[in-house]
């Protein structure tokens, strides 16, 4: 009982400190950066990483910045209210961090020309106070594919996919291309769970894949459930969005880390300087937006190979979508040495050869 009381008292004290701090200083001199998240900040995936970006902004600018966030905001009619609430509550820059917020962001932006808006993973910039930004997560998938092909005994990996949108399809294709660069016969099984965050469905998908003989699992969903299932069943897995090492210390090979901190700091800084302008960025490893967690649970030669590829992608010497690449239907997509154009990548709706699945259509 005493312990519980102490815990409650401690939590209360923490909340007082958290709630009291912004009220003390003068709010007018500060730049206010606001964030809308689609999931809970405790998902240890997508929204968690965006929140890490918020914390990095606070750490960087200290007293000069004030932050606010709304978590678990549904895409749809609620999103517009959340964005408008921020625009009205004195935010100078609003980051809307899910694709489904695209129209809401643009609608509100048109009404509030003095507030800057940053929409993640979208493509609409209808007024000049809207920017869009995304990261080339597929660069990390290629490295994962290479590691999987080196380590897999069955020659089949499993991929837990969320929604058949270009973002996810790019990741799948990049993974299989990386794997085929090591083992041309490598196969990839895909399970679509139609959710970004549902630990139950994700762990069911992982179990299904393992029962079908895959011995390496990767995921494009946000919970840690697949990692935990892989750990239980004694196979290897890749973390997604954040470093999930603590959920599978003997399981995680590496993880793709979405590091939004550099971009958020850069853009908040631009608002402070008055140099903010509408733009569309698609950064990758070169800007540090995509990072790899330490390579663990693998022999040194595999680790060296992964590090070598990572360095090549970082320096711009290599990009995963480099020909020759054949589509799943057997037609040629890219000739030898040709690289993919941005338009095709942004709207990617086909598999390359070697994916053991039909793309939902």
């Amino acid at each position, binding site marked *: 009982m005493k312990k519980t009381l102490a815990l409650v008292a401690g939590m209360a004290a923490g909340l007082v400190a958290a709630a009291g701090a912004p009220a003390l200083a003068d709010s007018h001199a500060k730049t206010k950066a606001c964030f809308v998240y689609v999931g809970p900040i405790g998902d240890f995936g997508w929204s968690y990483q965006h929140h890490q970006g918020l914390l990095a902004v606070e750490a960087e600018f200290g007293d000069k910045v004030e932050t606010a966030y709304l978590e678990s905001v549904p895409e749809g009619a609620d999103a517009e209210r959340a964005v408008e609430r921020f625009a*009205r509550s004195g935010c100078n820059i609003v980051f809307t961090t899910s694709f489904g917020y695209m129209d809401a962001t643009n609608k509100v932006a048109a009404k509030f020309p003095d507030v800057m808006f940053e929409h993640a993973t979208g493509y609409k910039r209808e007024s000049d106070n809207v920017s869009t930004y995304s990261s080339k997560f597929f660069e990390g998938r290629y490295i994962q594919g290479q590691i999987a092909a080196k380590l897999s005994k069955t020659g089949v990996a499993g991929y837990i996919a969320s929604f058949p949108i270009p973002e996810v399809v790019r990741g799948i294709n990049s993974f299989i291309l990386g794997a085929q660069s090591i083992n041309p016969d490598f196969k990839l099984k895909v399970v679509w769970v139609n959710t970004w965050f549902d630990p139950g469905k994700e762990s069911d998908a992982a179990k299904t894949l393992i029962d079908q003989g895959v011995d390496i699992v990767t995921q494009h969903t946000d919970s840690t459930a697949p990692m935990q299932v892989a750990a239980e069943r004694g196979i290897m897995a890749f973390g997604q969005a954040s470093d999930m090492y603590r959920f599978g210390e003997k399981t995680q090979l590496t993880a793709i880390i979405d590091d939004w901190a550099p971009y958020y700091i850069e853009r908040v800084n631009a608002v402070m300087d008055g140099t903010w302008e509408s733009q569309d960025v698609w950064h990758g490893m070169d800007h540090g937006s995509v990072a790899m967690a330490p390579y663990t649970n693998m022999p040194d030669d595999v680790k060296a190979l992964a590090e070598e590829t990572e360095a090549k992608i970082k320096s711009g010497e290599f990009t995963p979508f480099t020909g020759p690449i054949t589509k799943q239907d057997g037609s040629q997509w890219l000739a030898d040495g040709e690289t993919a154009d941005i338009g095709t990548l942004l709207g990617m709706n086909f598999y390359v050869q070697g994916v053991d699945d039909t793309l939902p259509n």
Partner: protein
Amino acid sequence: MFIELERRPAHSTLYSALSPFIALILTLVAGAILFAVMGINPAKGLYSFFIEPLTEVWSLHELAIKAAPLILIATGLSICFLSSNWNIGAEGQFILGAIFGSILPVLFHEQVGIWVLPAMMIMGMIGGALWALIPALLKTRFGANEILTSLMLVYVAELFLDWLVRGAWRNPEGFNFPETRSFSPGQILPEVLDSGRAHYGAVLAIVAVLIAWFMMAKTIRGFEVKVIGQAPKAGQFAGFDAKRVTIVAFMISGALAGLAGIAEVSGAIQQLRPTISPGYGFTAIIVAFLGRLNPVGVFAAGLVLALSFLGSEAAQISLGVSDKLGRVFQGMLLFFVLACDTLIHYRIRITGWAGRARTGET
């Protein structure tokens, strides 16, 4: 020691009427304690939760947007529940209404004219009513439990919508993202006032409440629903057809849920996407019972529930509390309403072992 609930011989009409307000006050008191434990000034906490959203014009518009679908659906549900038909699938009827109503804007994008919006609304009502007809027919023809069938049809509806927006109805210019094209201006429910984005869905909700009130209070059809709901045997002697009441009640509640669906899509979202409802169909069940299955009560309960959503957001920003707090308030409100209702009809009796032995003998 045992706690027993004993039915009161007569219950107070005054307290019956006051019960929702007593529940509201108890919720506020419990909320104040909660804020105090969290180290937040209770007055400030309650203010930002329940008053702040009402102080600005744009926020009142948002309240209307949030409340309109809840009120529309709950009005239909209350008629259905009064007839003792348990339609749990309003969420699915909402979605089917949205899909049916979107046939015009998605497939006949160029169609404009003053007839388009009314046609969309009517199509939405048809879609919802047809979806609700399935559990009604399964119940009247085969005796299937409507709670299970209507609930399971929600998932079918969700997957059907998902399939449409990823497949046949996908926006050709949308980079393969799962959404339909945006509705053209003549296919969007217009805003009622210039001061905010509340659309005519709110007006539809008010009209529905008035019609439902009139039907239940003044017409033989409303009387039929209530009699069949409370005493099916007596209804049969009066010549009422229980099966027909089941079908009519389901179709009315389905039609209103479908209307809410197309009004939400046309007025607030303006395109179809994989998810169009944050659970309105389920929240409306709470609204229907909070409003004591009375259209006017439903109207008030819809506003209170909508306020708790807005308040939760306001509190997240101004107090830095979790979004779960709004859920806690909704839960407390429902708990206190049910508790008050129970205590009006029953009294608590604490009995010892002796008391138990005595009841055992009888």
